[in-house]
């Protein structure tokens, strides 16, 4: 079982599908860690064969160390680019989107934080949010914004956790911001300072 099942939650919480070959003039894939498997599964489908010549894959290893660069390179798509992190891939992504035409299909696979940031960039480029295909693979660690100091902490596994910017104890909500590409963390002991429940590893 590779596809992640999520507990039903509030409507703000994103849900993801399974990548499938889209119709279009060009195809941009952005994946991290285990997300590479979703891309490989798509290209294993017969109808994806003719997409390869118009496909561009941007890949970064997962924060957990998962690196499937070799699998993606073996696909033989027109362009493959490996970046050490999402941040370091951003200038390339911005250039690709700036040069692109309508008809470009965008696919994101891997962790929620990665997919959300790709979707946010696509939206900033004028595409509807729904235009980005997303498939979750790998870690459930979250990208969380502290609603108090606005700092974003990547790869949050514990709940509550200490904001890496202001140090408050934050409860991680399912409330999600598409614009910020982050879940929202709110101070858990604001009314009873010091009353912080023990942290649990909720996001593995």
């Amino acid at each position, binding site marked *: 079982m590779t596809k992640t099942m999520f507990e039903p939650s509030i409507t703000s919480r994103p849900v993801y599908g399974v990548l499938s070959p*889209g119709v279009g*003039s060009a195809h941009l894939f952005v994946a991290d860690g285990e997300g590479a498997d979703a891309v490989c599964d798509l290209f294993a489908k017969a109808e994806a064969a003719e997409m390869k010549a118009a496909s561009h894959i941007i890949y970064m290893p997962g924060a957990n160390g998962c690196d499937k660069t070799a699998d993606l390179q073996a696909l033989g798509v027109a362009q493959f680019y490996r970046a050490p992190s999402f941040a370091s891939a951003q200038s390339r992504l911005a250039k690709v989107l700036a040069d692109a035409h*309508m008809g*470009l299909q965008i696919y994101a696979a891997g962790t929620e934080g990665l997919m959300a940031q790709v979707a946010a960039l696509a939206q900033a*480029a*004028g595409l*509807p949010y729904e235009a980005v295909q997303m498939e979750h693979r790998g870690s459930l660690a979250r990208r969380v914004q502290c609603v108090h100091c606005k700092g974003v902490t990547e790869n949050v596994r514990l709940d509550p956790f200490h904001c890496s910017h202001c140090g408050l104890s934050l409860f991680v909500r399912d409330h999600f911001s598409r614009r910020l590409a982050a879940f929202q963390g709110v101070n858990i002991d604001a009314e009873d300072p010091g009353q912080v429940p023990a942290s649990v590893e909720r996001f593995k």
Partner: protein
Amino acid sequence: MSVGAPKIPVVVAEVVEVNALIKRFRFQRRDGAAMPVFSGGSHVVVEMDDHGTRRMNPYSLMSHPADTLGYEISVRRDEVGRGGSLYMHTHVRPGMEMVLSQPVNLFPLDARAKKHLMIAGGIGITPFLAQMAQVEAMGGRFELHYSVRSPALGAYVEHLQEQYGSRVHVYYDELKQQIDLKTLLKSQPLGTHIYVCGPKGMIAWVKATAAAMGWPALAVHSEEFLAPPVGLAFEVQLAASGKSFTVQPNQSLLEAIEAAGVEAPYLCRGGACGQCETDVLRCDGHIEHNDHWLTDAQKASHTKIMPCVSRFRGAALILDR
């Protein structure tokens, strides 16, 4: 606008014959106050008292959205329709008092778009006149592709070319000119949104072509008001208000409900907005669904009807109204 919303009492300030088929009407408030500012793509419902028959037709606003001194619409004369456009053409004169609804926008520009690609067919140009003025004022990027039958019937072509220059592309059917849609859609920068207003066939063509080329459905916007079709007379019973009456061949079900003194919700009166959706309690016969609001499954179930454009054939129709 819907039940209870304040209407705008106006006087006809100007009637201009644009060409053999199209007239332009300008309305100003009777009390001299300012019109509400609207957004490009909005329409108003114009109320007409056609010799005892109340007609309420939606027309796109084509004047500058920031012009609060008056509203302008253009009306294409339809010889075979139910008579609303003919009434506007033959009876409406400067100085006449009429009533407009508040502006409603079912065809707005998506402000997130990087570029607006507008495709108009014939009288479908009207919402774009307001939209282009709005985009221009906001410093946005747009391109208009406007298809008309002949130079003689190309309403506002000169004005548009003068105002917007090379961003306006005109195609004349008579000269065998056609929008090269595939080439056009292939070269659009990422973030472009399409807006299409015109005949049903043109809208379907643009939507299908864009979808086949990988455009997201949410980046393709369209508007088509349906005129309520004429049909056979039929009986209807309203359960909640306890009334029964006949809907005449050239009357819509909504108009008949209103004529019976029952207030029913509505907005566009053209099968587009969904406001007048009504539950069907009993249907012994066949509902002629003419809207593009209900889903195919809803239409097949015969449990809902859009009284603004849809009709009925059969023994008994009972509505929850």
